[in-house]
C-alpha cells in the first residue's frame, strides 16, 4: 500500500517535472506578487546598456553644447540660489562658502529628482514600445537610473572642482570619512528614487492626475529637505517654537524625508558643517526606507506591468 503510494508520488513528481521542462515559459492570468526577474534582466543586460546609452545620448542630439548642459544647469542654479537664499534671505550658515553649501545640496537633490521624475512616467511614456513587444519592463527604470547616475557623476565632478577651489584657498576643511560615504549614498538615493518613481508610474499609467501632481510636487518636495537651508536652522527654529509650547510639525517632516540625512552627510563631508547634529540613526533610517520602498515598488510594478496596456 505504502509502496504503491510511493510509486505514485514519484511518478507524479517526474510527470510534473516533465510538464515544467517541456515548455520554456507559461503565460498565466495570475502571477505571484513577488516576481523580480533577475534572470531575465541579466539576459537582457545588453538592452539595459542600450537604453542607458539612448537615454544619455538622445537627450543631447541636435544640441550645440551637448553634454555641457549637464554642468550648466547646476552652475546657474547655484548662482541664483546663492544670491536669493544666501545673500537676500541669509539662509546659508556661517563659516561655509555659500556656493559650496548650495551646490552640494543641489547636486544631490537634482539626482534624486531626476530619477524620480523620469521613472514616475515609465509606463505612459513607453506605452508605445510596451504595447508591442515583451521584455522585462524593469529594464527601463534601471537604465533610467543608471543614466541619471552618470549625469550625477559629471555634476559630482563639478562639485569636486568647486570644493577643491575653496579647499586650496583654505576656506573649508573636509571630513574625509563622510566623503567616503558618497558611493553608498548614491546607491541608496537611486534605489529610493526609483522605488518611489515606480510606484508613481503605476498610478500615472491609469490616472493622469498624478502626472500633474509629480510635475509641481517635486518642486515643493525640495523645500521639505535641507537643500536651501541647513538642518541646524530648522532644529533651532523648532526648539524655539517648542519652548513656546508648539509641536513643530515642520521639523518632523524634514527629518522624515529620507533624502535629508543623505544631503546632511554630503554637507558634513564637503562643507564640514553640521557634524555636531548629525545622527547616524537617520542615515540608517534612509537606507531602510529606501529598501522597503523599493521592495514595495517591485510588487506594485509587477502587478501593473501585466495589464496596464489596456488602461494606459
Amino acid at each position, binding site marked *: 500500500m505504502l509502496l504503491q503510494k510511493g510509486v505514485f508520488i514519484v511518478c507524479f513528481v517526474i510527470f510534473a517535472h516533465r510538464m515544467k521542462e517541456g*515548455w520554456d515559459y507559461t*503565460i*498565466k*492570468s495570475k502571477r505571484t506578487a513577488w516576481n523580480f526577474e533577475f534572470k531575465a534582466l541579466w*539576459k537582457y543586460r545588453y538592452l539595459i546598456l542600450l537604453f542607458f546609452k*539612448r537615454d544619455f545620448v538622445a537627450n543631447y542630439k*541636435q544640441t550645440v553644447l551637448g553634454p555641457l548642459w549637464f554642468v550648466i544647469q547646476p552652475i546657474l542654479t547655484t548662482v541664483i540660489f546663492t544670491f536669493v537664499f544666501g545673500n537676500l534671505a541669509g539662509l546659508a550658515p556661517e563659516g561655509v562658502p555659500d556656493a559650496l553649501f548650495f551646490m552640494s545640496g543641489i547636486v544631490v537633490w537634482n539626482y534624486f529628482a531626476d530619477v524620480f521624475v523620469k521613472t514616475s512616467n515609465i509606463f505612459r511614456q513607453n506605452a508605445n*514600445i510596451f504595447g508591442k*513587444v515583451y521584455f522585462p519592463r524593469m529594464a527601463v527604470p534601471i537604465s533610467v537610473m543608471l543614466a541619471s547616475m552618470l549625469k550625477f557623476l559629471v555634476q559630482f565632478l563639478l562639485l569636486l572642482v568647486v570644493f577643491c577651489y575653496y579647499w586650496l584657498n583654505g576656506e573649508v576643511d573636509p571630513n574625509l570619512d563622510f566623503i567616503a560615504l558618497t558611493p553608498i549614498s548614491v546607491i541608496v538615493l537611486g534605489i529610493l528614487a526609483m522605488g518611489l518613481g515606480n510606484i508613481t508610474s503605476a498610478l500615472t499609467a491609469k490616472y493622469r492626475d498624478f502626472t500633474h501632481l509629480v510635475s509641481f510636487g517635486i518642486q515643493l518636495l525640495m523645500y521639505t529637505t535641507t537643500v536651501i537651508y541647513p538642518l541646524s536652522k530648522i532644529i533651532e527654529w523648532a526648539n524655539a517654537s517648542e519652548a513656546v509650547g508648539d509641536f513643530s510639525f515642520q521639523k518632523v517632516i524634514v527629518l522624515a524625508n529620507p533624502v535629508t540625512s543623505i544631503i546632511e552627510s554630503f554637507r558634513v563631508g564637503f562643507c564640514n558643517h553640521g557634524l555636531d547634529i548629525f545622527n547616524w540613526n537617520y542615515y540608517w533610517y534612509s537606507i531602510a526606507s529606501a529598501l522597503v520602498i523599493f521592495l514595495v515598488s517591485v510588487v506594485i510594478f509587477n502587478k501593473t506591468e*501585466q495589464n496596464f496596456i489596456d488602461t494606459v
Partner: protein
Amino acid sequence: MEVLRIKNISKQYKLGEIDRMSYFGDLKKTLKRLVGMSVSQFDNTEVNDRSVIGNSKYVWALNELSFSVNKGEVLGIVGRNGAGKSTLLKLLSRVTGPTTGTIQVKGRMASLLEVGTGFHPELTGKENIFLNGAILGMAKEEIEGKYDEIIAFSGVARYIDTPVKRYSSGMYVRLAFAIAVHLEPEILIIDEVLAVGDADFQKKCIKKMREIAQSGRTILFVSHNMSTVRELCSRAILLDKGGIVLDGDTEKVVQEYLTAGHSNSQFGLIPATYPRTIVNKDGLEIISLKLFNESGEDIDRFFYQEKITIKVKVKILKDIGAEYICLASFGDQIQDRISYHSSNNDLISETHPVLDRGEYEFELVTNQSLLPGSYHVNFSVLDTMGYPYDGVLGYGSFEISELGRNKNLKYTWSKSLGSVAFENEFKINRIK
C-alpha cells in the same frame, strides 16, 4: 510536436472612458480586496459584438479560446475587425496578460506587431538595429553576426547612418522586418506588416517567410489579405466575436471568411419609398430583389468570375402579355458607370411567357466577370418601347473578391484598367 498550447484563454476589456467614476470604482474594489471581501471580476461581461449596444461595460475580447500549434506550421489567423485577432497576438507576445487561462510556449517567440517595434526616431538605422535586436531579445554578438545580412535584406544601406525619423514609412518597415526575420525565433508572429512595403518587398517577405517555415520554424500570421493567407498558410483559424468559428484547412477557412457574415441584409424587400423610375404607370411593381452565389447562398460577396443569380419578385397589376423586357445591370460604385448588362434581350421573340395579373419570380443567371470591387444593382422591366413599368437603380451593394472559387484563379491587375474581364484567347504568330 507542439510548440504552442493555448488553453481556455479569455480576455476581458472595459469599455468607455477612464474618469472619476472608474477611479472610485477602482478604489472601492481595492478597499474591498484589502479587507478580504470577494470581488467578482466577471459579472456582467458580454460577448463582444461591436455593432450592438449592450447592457454591460465589460466585454470578452476573447472568450475561452483553445488551440495548439505544431512545429513548422504556418498558421493564418483571420477574422473581421474586432474578432479578437490583435488581442490574441497581444497576449501571445506578452504585451498584456490574459484574464483567464494559460499559454505555454516552447522556444523563442518574437512578434512583429505593427511597424518598427521600439524604433527610436532620433537614433540612426544602425543604432536602431542594435536597439531593436536587443528589445527582441538578441544578444550583442548575435546582432553583430547578422548585421550585414540585415542591411542587405532591408535594402536601405544608404540610409543606415541617418536617424530613422527621416525614413519613409516603407523604409521603416523594410528595416523592421529585416531585423525580425533575422532574429531566427522558433515562433514568429506577424501582423499585417506586409500591407506597407512595395510589391517587390512584399514578394521578398513572402519568400523569406516561406523559407522560415521550411526551416522548421513556426509562423503565426494575421491578415485580412486572403490571397497572402492562401499562399502562405498550411492551416488557418477563423475568429469571430472572440471565439474560434473554424479551425483547419486554409482553403476552407478562407472560403468561410469570404462568405460568412455576408448573409444578405441589404438585399430583399424593396421599400415602397425607394426611388424608382416609372413611366408606364400601374403595369407592375418590383417587390424584392436578391442575389445568390453558386452554392445557392443569399449573399452580397462573390468570388471572381462566380455565377450570380438575381431573383426578383414582381407583382403584375395588369395583363401585359408578352411585350416586356427585363433589364439587369451592375453599376460600378466608385466610378458610377454601368459596367455589365444582361436581359432577356430577345426583343421580338414571342416565346417568352405571357404575364397575367399575379406575382412572379424572375430568375437571371449571369456569367459575370466583373473585376474585384464593389458594385450595385439596377433592375427594371420595360415595355417594348423602352418605357419602364418599374425600375430600381443603384440598389444595394455587393462585392467581387479578387480570389476565385478555384484556388488557382486570382485576379492580379488593377481595376483602373477597366471593370470587366472578357474571356480571351491570346496567340502569337511568327511572321518573319
